[in-house]
């Protein structure tokens, strides 16, 4: 679960470990067996020999597709239990439980509009038609024969989070609709060249093979810049929840446009103005006008540790860490404040810093045990600075709904409890 970097020998460390165990049991069911007594648990601590060294472990090959330790069973996707329905719904990545920048495939966030289809790749086809010289149909084998490429990029739902209360308690509640993976597939540009674009080709309408036949229009410039047709994620074939066997991937654009279960690309002169890009995924301003075709996810960051729902066991050293990302390119700098925004300092960025990918930041910190408010703000390579929620609300109002990239501060109480400072 969470890091236990605090030294075990110190009383503070023991306190923290006890808290973490209690938290794990509460979150993931009983981690320690019901019959395990405190005395039995200490039998495995120095100077005693732990029980798992006194007998051979599970035989090799017991899990032909591996699963996390049973002690990590609380680290799962975060989904509301009170949704009206679960066919058009989302589940969130437990950001505060993860390290590094790559989201495990089983914890990648989900957003579906017509459920998750089960598609036989042998019967799946991609049709490319419209303003092309040669309309084509590809099998999955065809697409895998094209020159392939792999790139690391984040994917983020545009509604992550909304602008009105109640605001989430944890990092996952707030911005868990972002994840990051290494994507493998073929450059869309290569596939388009195969069909030959006509001069008036300005948009491509992408359609999924799900029950929503989800449809979005993509500007041709993006299709020719860095769009991919993706069949693998983090080294293995896409999970069904991520579009198996084929998805469009548009680095830096709102997640809805990276159409999953991709079956059709219709090259057109103008957008199709689908339901998803008119009645949904448009940004309503206070004057009643609404922004349409607002594609980019702007620079954003969140501290994932310490973050809402966690607790600092004792004053002393704590690493502050989190993730930053920008749809416009690389993260240039992440600044942290530990004094309610009065002063800011630059965090360390973990290499490699990749374009349109999550970037891990860190700051060593000595907590003095007094109440504190900590927050991060990202600056991307265009010079754009992540704004405050107040700044966004002043321009956009509470009904804007999408593209909220506000700074999100965490409040640390004297007892170490971490909560959402804006809630």
């Amino acid at each position, binding site marked *: 679960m969470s890091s236990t970097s605090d030294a075990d020998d110190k009383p503070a460390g023991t306190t923290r470990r006890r808290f973490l165990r209690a938290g794990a049991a509460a979150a993931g069911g009983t981690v320690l067996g019901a019959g395990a007594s405190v005395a039995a648990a200490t039998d495995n601590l120095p100077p005693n020999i732990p029980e798992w060294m006194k007998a051979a472990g599970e035989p090799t090959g017991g899990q032909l597709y591996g699963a996390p330790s049973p002690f990590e069973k609380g680290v799962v996707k975060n989904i509301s239990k009170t949704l*009206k*329905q679960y*066919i*058009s719904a989302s589940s969130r990545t437990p950001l505060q439980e993860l390290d590094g920048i790559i989201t495990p495939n089983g914890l990648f966030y989900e957003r579906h*509009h*017509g459920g998750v289809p089960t598609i036989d790749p042998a019967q799946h086809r991609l*049709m*490319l*038609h419209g303003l092309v*010289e*040669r*309309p*084509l*149909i*590809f099998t999955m084998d*065809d697409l895998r*024969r*094209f020159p392939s490429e792999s790139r690391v990029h984040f994917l983020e739902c545009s509604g992550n989070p909304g602008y009105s209360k109640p605001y989430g308690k944890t990092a996952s509640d707030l911005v868990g609709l972002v994840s990051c993976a290494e994507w493998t597939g073929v450059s869309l540009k*290569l596939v388009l*060249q*195969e*069909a*030959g674009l006509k001069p008036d080709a300005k948009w491509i309408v992408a*359609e999924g093979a799900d*029950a*929503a*036949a*989800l*449809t979005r229009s993509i500007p041709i410039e993006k299709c020719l810049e860095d769009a991919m047709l993706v069949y693998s994620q983090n080294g293995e074939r896409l999970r069904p929840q991520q579009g198996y066997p084929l998805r469009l991937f548009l680095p830096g654009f709102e997640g809805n446009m990276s159409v999953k279960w991709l*079956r*059709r690309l*219709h090259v*057109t002169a103008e957008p*199709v*103005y*689908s*339901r998803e890009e*008119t*009645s949904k995924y*448009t940004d*309503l301003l*206070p*004057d*009643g*006008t*609404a*922004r*349409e*075709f*607002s*594609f*980019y996810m702007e620079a954003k960051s969140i501290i994932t540790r310490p973050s809402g729902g966690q607790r600092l066991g004792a004053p002393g050293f704590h690493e502050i860490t989190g993730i930053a990302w920008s749809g416009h390119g690389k993260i240039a700098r992440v600044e942290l404040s530990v004094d309610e925004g009065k002063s800011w300092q630059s965090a360390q960025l973990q290499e490699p810093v990749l374009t349109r990918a999550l970037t891990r930041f860190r700051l060593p910190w000595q907590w003095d045990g007094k109440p504190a408010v900590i927050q991060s703000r990202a600056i991307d390579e265009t010079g754009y*600075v992540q*704004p405050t929620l107040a700044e*966004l609300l002043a*321009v*956009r109002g*509470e*009904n804007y709904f999408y*593209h909220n990239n506000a700074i999100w501060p965490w409040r640390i109480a004297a007892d170490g409890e971490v909560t959402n400072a804006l809630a």
Partner: protein
Amino acid sequence: MRWRETCGIAVVIVLCAFASGAQAQTLYGLGRPATAAEIAGWNIDVGRDGSNLPKGSGSVSRGREVFAQQCASCHGDKGEGGLGDRLVGGQGTIATPKPIRTVGSYWPYAPTLFDYIRRAMPQNAPQSLSDEEVYAVSAYILNLNGLVGADATLDAKSLAAVKMPNRDRFVGDARPDVKH
């Protein structure tokens, strides 16, 4: 494979050399031609101007029946919403602090209604309605919103002619809208 690639590249070079715009041999030779019938079967995209709307028509009264059977369990008897989105009302609220976004108050183009119902509704059986039924349900929802009369029958031409109240209220993306 290598031989084939080399050949493909050679052909492209030759064609470039002759500046030929004719059916060029492609670089990788992957995929097969899509026939007109295959494209017609899959291309269900309807433009905002009604382009690619199919033949046929449907009346408000027929739409009322289809809606009751296929839609009301999620969207309410009169499109007031439930498990599914609210479809009716809200006109005049979009510029207020409590906007109610419905087909009538927010959607900019009526043909999109046909496109979406045909491709995605009803949620438990998408693409099961006939084109006539989709026209009829579209007509009924527009009638509930006061945008066509109770005696209306809509087809490709008349659906595209319906002017949605919120059509001219969409603007471009003005971000970055917070500058430091």
